[in-house]
């Protein structure tokens, strides 16, 4: 297939960017979207133009490195699919495709399609863990976890940290990312001791960097792992509780 690409090019974080138009020909429909960009880059290099910078590592939809806004949609037209898992068969011959970086205040563009996403790491550092120093753990089967809870925790833990939720949000909010990690840990018995401390610290850190949630739901639509927006409700509930929970009694009575 032959395609016209409108690609955002920006030399560095300080400079302004604009769209450049390129033609690529003879693209196989079995190619992935990023392989199509690889072909474009080979063409550009051979013709003496600097290749388009974009982030991509595992190309299996799990590392969360890649992420492009394709025709206005983070990760492109296919639902529940990271950019690297999107294939050209989802496009038609002769189509014009617009490719942009994530657009969010918290994710400044570094160059072309590459953005800086480290505020997501700051949220995890604030409390997205269970304090379990190496070597201190009891036998793994000492703590039974009901299958339903383990499965729900896994649904939330499937987040790949790509930032599509932020890019899709009109407010540039990171609620879905933050809620996914909070839910993963708060749903498990091991996560109870730090439950409210964790929730409060992570939400407060999130608010430092990102916009606020106004329930648009765009994040869930864009998420390549189909993380449910229900986790945001769970996070909000735990956040409010964190403000009046008597933490001295956390281990003594049923939490919930």
């Amino acid at each position: 297939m032959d395609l016209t690409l409108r690609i955002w090019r920006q030399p560095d974080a300080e400079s302004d960017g604009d769209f450049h138009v390129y033609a690529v020909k003879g693209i196989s429909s079995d190619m992935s979207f990023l392989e199509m960009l690889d072909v474009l880059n080979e063409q550009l290099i051979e013709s003496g133009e600097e290749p388009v910078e974009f982030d991509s590592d595992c190309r299996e939809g799990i590392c969360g490195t890649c992420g492009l806004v394709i025709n206005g949609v983070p990760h492109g037209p296919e639902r529940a699919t990271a950019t690297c898992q999107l294939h050209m068969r989802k496009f038609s011959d002769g189509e014009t495709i617009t490719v942009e970086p994530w657009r969010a205040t918290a994710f400044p563009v570094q160059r072309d399609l590459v953005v800086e996403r480290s505020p997501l790491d700051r949220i995890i550092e604030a409390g997205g863990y269970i304090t379990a120093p190496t070597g201190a753990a009891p036998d793994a089967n000492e703590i039974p976890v009901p299958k339903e809870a383990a499965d729900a925790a896994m649904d939330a833990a499937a987040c790949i940290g790509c930032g599509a939720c932020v890019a899709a949000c009109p407010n540039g909010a990171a609620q879905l990312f933050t809620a996914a990690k909070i839910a993963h840990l708060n749903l498990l018995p091991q996560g109870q001791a730090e439950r409210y401390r964790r929730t409060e610290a992570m939400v407060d850190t999130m608010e430092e960097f990102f916009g606020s949630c106004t329930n648009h739901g765009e994040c869930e639509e864009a998420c390549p792992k189909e993380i449910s927006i229900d986790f945001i409700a769970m996070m909000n509930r735990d956040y409010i509780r964190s403000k009046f929970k008597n933490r001295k009694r956390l281990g003594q009575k049923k939490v919930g």
Partner: protein
Amino acid sequence: MTLNSKVPSGPIEDKWETHKFEMKLVAPHNKRRFTIIVVGTGLAGAAAAASLGELGYNVEVFTYHDSPRRAHSIAAQGGINAAKNYKNDGDSVRRLFYDTVKGGDYRSREANVHRLAEVSVDIIDQCVAQGVPFAREYGGLLDNRSFGGAQVSRTFYARGQTGQQLLLGAYQALARQIAAGTCRLHNKSEMLDVVVKDGRAVGIVCRDLLTGEISRHTGHAVVLATGGYSNAFYLSTNAMYCNVTAAWRAHRRGALFANPCFTQIHPTCIPASDEFQSKLTLMSESLRNDGRIWVPKDPDDTRPPDQIPEADRDYYLERRYPAFGNLVPRDVASRAAKREVDNGHGVGPLENGVYLDFSNAISRLGRSAIEEKYGNLFEMYERITDENPYSVPMRIYPAPHYTMGGLWVDYNLMTTVPGLYAAGEANFSDHGANRLGASALMQGLADGYFVLPYTIGDYLAEHLGESLVPTNDPAFDDVESDVIGRVARLVGNKRGTRSPDHYHRRLGKILWDNCGMERSREGLGKALAEIPALHDEFRRDVRILGSDDGLNSSLEKAGRIDDFFQLASLMCRDALDREESCGGHFRVEHQTEDGEALRDDENFSYVAAWEWTGEGAEPALHKEPLVFENVELAQRSYK
């Protein structure tokens, strides 16, 4: 140079306990006086950094990713082994040890493997405490499954995303230490060389991938947890950024490189669809628990798979290996698939695959049971191939996946450069000539959580009171000017015409054809002539546009490919030297009558550790003899 493995004496069950007691300790108030550099944030690196930080050391952590969570450990699908015997099926530390030594075709160090099996149980405890959401039974206890190369169910898993969940556990532990200030993170920072002074590793030199700035970092010890080198083949299941540069630069500074020809070709990957393929995608080996592998008996059979009756199908693994069937180890399964495709039985548009069929399992267990176990893998397969594996058998073919070879390390995981450690896939230590499924995650975490935190202390205790080598020391000047020169040579080549990928593809093809699943004296000789010639052409002709003072992925790639060229020669050199077949190393000259690998224990029961002797010079071979006191050497049989 004599290689001292430093394996403790005594019965194998007691070696690690004895060694832990005999190693020197660093008192808590002295730990903060030491700085440890950890390069790489995959399972081994993140686990080591977090654990060392918890102990109170100052840890400087480096990753070329934007976030430590993105290392390629994250893509491991199937699971992690541990000798918990939760299934009551006769597993034990001794059995995991035995399986791993046998699976590695008797080319690993017994003591290391036994330690790995011992700490495997602690890893699961640790990960559960961190909140890793492993699969559970309805009673709330942990579930297990079986995996290739084993007859017990000892594999713990989190859907098809076990690597992701284990890495997130380690990453979160690291995040906690970053917040606590014991670990300092340097992201988008690529290590380009090791600094060695008076024979000891004292620091590293890095390039900031966003600004191009070259920086110097000093430490009392350096840990390389920088992964494997399967990307030397260009097409592999590794991530795009995976490379050998950190390990190779350490090699050039004096660290011996062990068994470079021991590479693993994973049997269940999606076959390539065209020449622009940028990487291959693995389908977890766990699929072989329920999928049956077959090809049409008639090479000219063009019927769609569902119209080929049972009588016309050849379930070749079940036929040739009745005891293990579809669960034979990876090397055996891969070679068998190659044999079928080479004999014209390949399926798919390019006739480059074999079927992995779930129809029996679906009718036996129901579609929902299969969906529960493998749903995300089936989805991934469909996304890539546009075929639905619930109704059409998957097509699979082997692809480079893991490298058992790596930097030579002693029992303490220290390389031949004092103070320089290698952990995880970057070292050679535990898997011999073939790694068993679900053992890479185990080894990465064993090294990071439970080995390095002890052994590094033993080294540092001897250097108590020594201050850090200042970064303006001449040792740093020399290394930095080397690095700057290398970057400048690449970016300054204005006459180049072809992209770095162009050369990487060509190098990969030479390696795959001659040092892939089958190696021959003739092919390796040819590769050893072609690789340096292509390397020269690459250095003359590679075109890198743009500058070195900002984000420039062509420049990054070219530097990594430059090192792959030299490594590729060493892989072929090692493969040529090893006149036997073992595990993933199959020399056509050395096979049994029915085409299985034929080892030569009398002459090749050693680790081949290669010493760098200079650009263009023949590397020097050093041998560490392998002594087997606890496992009897036998021809591996999975029949």
